[in-house]
């Protein structure tokens, strides 16, 4: 049992942005959400996190509809790292990560014994222990992204939802970040643009096109030249490298009419 979406559909501002998607990630797996801009990746993540309610279909957590559960209970199981989390306040890294403990606290916010431990573990996991006292606005884009992930980890979730976490990161940080997420003992759903990264780190991928899930399964089976041409409108060479890993090379120009 885990976080699942069954036939969810969502109209947002008059447009149908998610159209009958079913997503049932295996516990502990890393699932990539792929698809061009506007295909509904972020919208699907909003439905999964409970920030938006589907017009049809249902998102369930351990079999119970997300909308029927108290928000705090959801927040103790599902953590979200969104694309644009920023603040004006002069907040320190450790305090950002501490935010993740809020759903675990009582009404008056008394800190539990596990709180500081979870914060320290989250900082260590993301390699931020020695940056814990830095101020948020002095961090680089990649560090900020890692702090948000540390904050999400401090929630001690079973499910982690990430919306394009590798945006604005250099290649090394992209690799480090996804390796970190794939290593975590949680179920992760990640919206991604980079097909090679998806192939490297995801157990399964789901490809969205105009709100519909058009393909799903292990990256090796899903990411074919035909699919990439159809969904992204791009010509690609899909092969395996000498170590047996999938690699996608793009070619300029429109795809052949035949594909």
């Amino acid at each position, binding site marked *: 049992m885990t976080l699942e979406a069954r036939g969810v559909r969502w109209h947002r501002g008059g447009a149908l942005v998610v159209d009958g998607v079913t997503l049932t990630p295996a516990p502990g797996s890393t699932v990539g959400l792929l698809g061009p801009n506007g295909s509904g990746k972020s919208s699907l993540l909003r439905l999964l*996190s*409970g*920030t938006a309610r589907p017009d049809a279909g249902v998102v369930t957590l351990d079999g119970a509809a997300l909308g029927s559960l*108290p*928000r*705090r*209970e*959801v*927040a*103790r199981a*599902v*953590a*979200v790292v*969104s694309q*644009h*989390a*920023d*603040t*004006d*306040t*002069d*907040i*320190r890294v450790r*305090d*950002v990560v501490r*935010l*993740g403990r*809020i*759903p675990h*606290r009582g*009404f*008056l*916010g008394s800190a539990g014994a596990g709180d500081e431990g979870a914060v320290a573990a989250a900082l260590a996991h993301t390699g931020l222990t020695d940056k814990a006292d830095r*101020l948020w*606005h*002095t961090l680089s884009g990649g560090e900020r992204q890692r702090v*948000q992930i540390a904050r999400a980890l401090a*929630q001690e979730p079973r499910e982690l939802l990430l919306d394009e976490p590798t945006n604005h990161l250099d290649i090394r940080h992209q690799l480090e970040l996804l390796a970190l997420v794939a290593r975590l003992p949680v179920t992760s759903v990640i919206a991604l643009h980079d097909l090679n990264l998806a192939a490297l780190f995801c157990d399964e991928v789901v490809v969205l096109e105009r709100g519909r899930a058009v393909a799903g399964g292990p990256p090796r089976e899903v990411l074919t030249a035909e699919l990439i041409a159809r969904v992204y409108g791009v010509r690609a060479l899909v092969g395996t490298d000498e170590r047996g890993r999938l690699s996608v090379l793009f070619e300029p120009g429109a795809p052949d009419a035949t594909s």
Partner: protein
Amino acid sequence: MVLSVAAAITLGPADVSLVNVRDVLLNHLGLAEVPVRAAKDAIVWEERLPRALTAAAVGAGLGICGAVLQSLLHNPLADPFLLGISSGASTGAVLVGVLGLGGTAIGLSGGAFLGAVLAFGLVVLLAQLSGGGTDRVILAGVAGTQLFSALTSFVVFAFADSDETRGVMFWLLGSLEGVRWDDVALCGAVVVLGLALCLGSAHTLDAFSFGDDVAASLGVHVTRARMLLLVLTAVLTAALVSVAGAVGFVGLVLPHAARFLVGPRHARLMPATALIGAVFMVWVDAVSRVAFQPTPLPVGVGTALVGVPAFVLILLRRRRAR
């Protein structure tokens, strides 16, 4: 804080020493029987002590309201009067003071309170109708403020003679003239209650620091929490404004000063803001009382005159830190 209140009491046209203050307090608390001249006793107990305590409550209350609104609306320029409360209060007060609406039954303060609550209700309704996001709340607040300011000016220009205008103007700028012990009780009660509720919501307020989506993902019921806290600040502000008039700048500047000192976590920020607000207000009121003797300066003028340079200083320091 206690020292500030005591020191502020000694300032003024009539000569009162700290020893006098102590003696009067001890007498009234039944802890001692020190002979003090009746005139001094009256000045301290009936006039300056309630005034200083009200100033402290008003400063503390406006400070925490400002801090809550800034966090809730992700806007460093938010202040307690953003949501049309002060201009609504002005309109209410003017309607009572100039047009005699409601007669003596509600008085200037009652009119101000009703006006403030009404204006806030209108602003919230407008914000909800237009979508309910933080920017909508702010825009609706700006619109409401403009509307009620215009209404106030209209009433003053159309119906008031110059004496009435002066009286109303003085009140509009914020004034602690003639506050009594019931005012102390009212302000003290709402501020203590408000501070307690804000401390209880400290973690909710923390959760808002990265925006509504992050707050929601941390288990906060965003719409409900925001509405509750907005109503709380509105009632608190309306009560304070009805006693002290529209004292500007305290709610805007002091939360920033407090953040600068203790950081952005609300469990520490709230008490710090309240304390700084209280001390600041006591001093500004004391200074405005004596600066242009015998004419008292409206305390709102004093807060802005002190507050603006302080604000500029904070902005400059923040820029250097970045």
